[in-house]
C-alpha cells in the first residue's frame, strides 16, 4: 500500500502518521508538501494529518483547504483512493467540501486533550472493517474545534445512509452527555462520504497504535485500510516498533 502524508503549512501530526505507516504498518510512505501536486495513481492512501494548519486562523482548516495540493487530493478522491482526515485533517476535508458539515469550538470553549471512548457504528467501511459493530474502543482526542455540527437535512442523510462511523460514548458504549466532552452533534466522532472512500475523524488513531504508548486500539484502523487495499490479507503488526 502506497501512503502519502500531506504536510500543510502548520501541520503537527504529519510525523506521527508517517511513523505509523512506515514503522508500524511497514508500508512505503511519502510526505507531500502543500505547495506540490501529485498523481492519483501514485498512492492508495492519502492522510491529512492533525495539527493547526495556518494557526487555525479564520476557521480551522479553511486556509489549508485552499492549498495547491488540495486539487490533487480531490482528484485522488474522485479516483476512488482512500482519504483519511484526522483532527485538523478532518476539518480540512469539511472546509474543502469533501465531507458534509462543519466544526464548532468545543462546548466549554477550551482545548480538550484526553483519552475518550468511541463506539463503532459502521464497520462496513475500508477504515473500520477490523472492528466489530458496537465495539467500544479508546482513542485520544486533542482539539479545540471538535464540536461537529450539520444542518437537519445533512444529519438525516448521514443517518439514513449509515455514514456516521464512530460516536463518543462511555466505557460501556452508552452515549451519555458526559462522554461527549466536545459537544458534538449526535456524539459524532467520525463520518464517511457517500462513496465510503473518505473518512474524517476527530480522535487520533495514529497516537494509539503502540504498546509502549499504552494503547493499540487505533492501529486496526490503519490495518483495515491495508487489508482493503491488499485484498483480504490481514497484517498483524501491532507489536512492531
Amino acid at each position, binding site marked *: 500500500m502506497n501512503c502519502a502524508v500531506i504536510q500543510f*503549512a*502548520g*501541520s*503537527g501530526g504529519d510525523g506521527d502518521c508517517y511513523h505509523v505507516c512506515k514503522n508500524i504498518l511497514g508500508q512505503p510512505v511519502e510526505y507531500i508538501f502543500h505547495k506540490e501536486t501529485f498523481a492519483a495513481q501514485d498512492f492508495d492512501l492519502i492522510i491529512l494529518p*492533525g*495539527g493547526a494548519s495556518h*494557526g487555525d486562523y479564520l476557521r480551522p482548516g479553511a486556509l489549508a483547504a485552499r492549498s495547491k495540493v488540495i486539487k490533487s487530493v480531490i482528484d485522488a478522491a474522485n479516483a476512488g483512493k482512500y482519504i483519511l482526515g484526522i483532527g485538523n485533517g478532518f476539518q480540512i476535508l469539511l472546509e474543502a467540501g469533501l465531507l458534509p458539515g462543519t466544526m464548532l469550538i468545543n462546548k466549554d470553549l477550551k482545548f480538550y486533550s*484526553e483519552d475518550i471512548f468511541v463506539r463503532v457504528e459502521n464497520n462496513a467501511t475500508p477504515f473500520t472493517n477490523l472492528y466489530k459493530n458496537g465495539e467500544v474502543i479508546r482513542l485520544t482526542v*486533542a482539539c479545540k474545534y471538535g464540536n461537529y455540527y450539520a444542518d437537519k437535512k445533512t444529519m438525516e442523510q448521514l443517518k439514513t445512509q449509515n455514514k456516521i462511523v464512530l460516536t463518543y460514548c462511555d466505557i460501556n458504549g452508552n452515549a451519555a452527555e458526559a462522554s461527549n466532552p466536545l459537544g458534538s452533534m449526535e456524539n459524532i466522532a467520525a463520518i464517511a462520504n457517500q462513496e465510503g472512500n473518505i473518512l474524517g475523524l476527530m480522535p487520533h488513531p495514529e497516537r494509539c497504535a503502540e504498546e*509502549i504508548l499504552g494503547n493499540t486500539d487505533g492501529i486496526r484502523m490503519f490495518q483495515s485500510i491495508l487489508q482493503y487495499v491488499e485484498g483480504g490479507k490481514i497484517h498483524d503488526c501491532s507489536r512492531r516498533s
Partner: protein
Amino acid sequence: MTAREEAKKLGLTDLEFDEILKILGREPNYLELSLYSVMWSEHCSYKNSKPVLKRFPTQGPQVLQGPGENAGIVDIGDNLAVAMKVESHNHPSAVDPYQGAATGAGGMIRDIFTMGARPIALLNSLRFGCLCDDRTQYLFEEAVAGIGDYGNAMGIPTVGGEVYFDDSYKENPLVNAMCVGIIKHDKIVRGKAAGVGNSVMVVGAATGRDGMHGASFASGELSDDNPDQGSPMQVGDPFKEKQLMEACLELLQNDWVVGVQDMGAAGVVSSTCETAARAGSGIELDVALVPQRDKDMKPHEIMISESQERMLVIVEKGHEDDVKKIFKKWDLDAVKFGTVTDDGMLRILENGKVVGEVPAASLAEGVPIVKRESKRPVYMDKLQIDFSKIPVTDDLNEVLFKLLDSPNIASKAIVYRQFDQTIGTNTVVAPGSDAAVIRIKGTKKGIAVSVDGNGYYCYLDPYEGGKQIVAEAARNLVVSGAKPLALTDGLNFGNPEKPEVYYQFEKCVDGISEVSKKLNIPVISGNVSFYNEGKFSAVYPTPIVGMVGVLDDVNKHCTMNFKKQGDLVVLLGENTDELGGSTYLQEVLNITAGPAPRLDIELEKKVQTCCLKAIELGLVNSAHDVVQGGLAVALAECCIAGNLGFSGEIETDLRPDTLLFGEGQSRIILSLPEENLSVLNKLAKEIGVKTSVLGFVKSGGLNIQVKQREQVVGKIEVSTERIAEIWNNAIKRRIEK
C-alpha cells in the same frame, strides 16, 4: 536634557553612565544609551545575580553545553543529546496573562531549536494567588489558555508541570516555561558571529513597535505607571513560529551556517552583540534593511524591539540566497542586514550612514556587577513554634479530605487537559504521575522530565528549600525509573535591592548547588527573574528546577498508581518527627510555621539509588514519593490513580498527625508482589536504607491505623470513590462557582 539625565530616565545608574563614558571615551547618543539601558538591565545582564550564579556546579562528563548559550545540552548516549532550559515570563503575564504566557512558551521553544534541537516536550511551572480571588481566576485561566494554545499550535506536547496557589503571588503571578529538545551530538549549533565578511541575516517575522523596553520592564517592580516608550507587551504568533522552527531546523542541516541566535529580550541588539562577543568579533549592520511592520521606526526602536518569532542567522558569505530559498519555502522573510567584522564594534547604520557605534562585548558583558547586600530576614526566626502545644486533631478523615481539596494538592487535570500531551507519539507517561516519560524513537531509550518548586519551604528556610527542590526533582525522575542527568533552573525572587530578598536568593542558590553537586546533577542552563513584587508584597522566593533523566530501556519505566490487589506496600526511608512547613499546618490549621523539612543528602542519595535499582530489577509495580500532604496523601494518590485501595497498620512513636501529614523528606512508597520483598530488603540493606511494610493494596478504600505500642491512636477510613471525587473536583468547583 543632558545625556546623564536621559540615561537615568532609561533606568541606567550614575555609576553605569560613568562606565559608558569610560568605554566610549565620549558621550553616548540616544540610540547608544538605549542599547546600554536594555543590555545592562537585570533581565539581560544578570548584573545582580552573576557572582552568586557562579556557585552552581556546571561541569560533568555528561555536559555538552553548560550555561551561557541559548540552552544547555546534556548527553544521553548513542550520539544523542537533550537540550533544555527554563525561562520566566512573569511581568508580561501579570499584565496580559494570555499573551504573556504564550510568548513565554514561544521564546523558550526558540531557545531550543536555535541550538539545532527539535523540541519534543514542553513543561510549565505556574504560581497564582488564592483561587478565591476573581482576578486570580482570570489570570489563571488566561495564562493556561495562552501557554496551551501556543504549544498546541506548534505541535509540541506539554507533558508536565506544576501549579501552586498562594496569596504571595496575587499581584505578581509566576509563569515559567520549560522546553526540551533532542539533537545529535554533531548537529549542535552555537550562537557565534564568527568569520570576517560573513553575512548577518534576520529571518522570520517583521519588526514592529511591540515589546519596546520589555527587558527593562521585566527588571523593575510592577506598577500602574505606564512608561511612554511604546508597549512593553509582545504578541505571539505560534503559526509563524512553527514555520520558523521548520525553516531553521532545515537550515541548520547545512555546514555553511556559522551561528544562530534567538531574537528574544532586547531583540536585534542582544542577538548581535552576544553572538559577536562570543566569537570576539564585531558586526556592522544597517537598520533600514530590517523588514518593518510599523511606519517610521527610529533606529533605536528597531534595535530594541521585542517583536516575536524572529531569529538572527550568520552564514558564510555567498550563501544568502540558499537561506532565502529555505525560508521562502516556509513563507518567511530572510534578509541580510549586516556583516561580521574584526574590530569588535557593533556599528549601526541607517541607510548607509553611521548612527551609533559601541564595542559589542561592552554591551554583552561589560555591565558593572552590582554587589548587593544580604541580610537574614527577621521573619524567619518568628516562624518557629512549639508543636507540642498544637492539639492532635481527632478527625483524621476530615484532615485528609481538606488536604485533598487543597488546590495545591488536588488534581491539576483541569489544567493539563488543555494541553496536547501526546502529539509526536512519544509520550509514554503523560501528566499526572511524578514525572513525564518520553521515548526516543529509533532507540530503546527514554527520558523522564519534571519541573518542581516549593516557594513555601524556601520562604521558611531558603537554604533547606533550595536543597529540597533538587532532591524532589531527582526523586520524581527516579520513581519513574530514570537516572537524573542535569538540571535547568528558573529563579524567581522579589527586588534584589532589598537585603532580605537578596539573602533568600543567595541561600536558595547555595541549597540548589549543594544537592546538585552531591547528586552529580549539574546546572546547565537557567534564568533569573527579580523584581517580582507588587504594591503590597513580594512573592515567596520561588526557585524552580527542571530536570532530565535517562532510561536505558524505556519499557522499564514506572508509575505511581497501585496496580494489583494483594501487592505489598513498602516505605523506603523513614518517617520523621517533622510537622513544620506542612500543608496540614498551613492550610488545615492556618499556621504558617517552620522549620521546613530538613534534607539529609546522604540519606536521599541512598533512597534514590535503592529505588532506581529496584525499578531496574523489575521488583516493583509502582513508586511514588512522599511530598505535600505527607504519607496519607501520597497513599491516597496511589489509590486514586490506580482506582484501588490500601489497608495497613503503622506502628510509630510519632503523633498520628505528624506521621500521616508531616512532610519529612527522602521517602518513597513502593508496591510490589510479596515474593519480591526479600530481594528488595536485601538490596536496601546493602545500600543502607530502611524499609518498612506499611500494608497491602486492596480494592475500594483507604484504611490506615496508626498504633503506638499496639494501641490504635488514630485512623483513616475512607472510600477511594470519595477521596477521588474531592481530589478531582477541588479546582473545578472553585472556578465554576
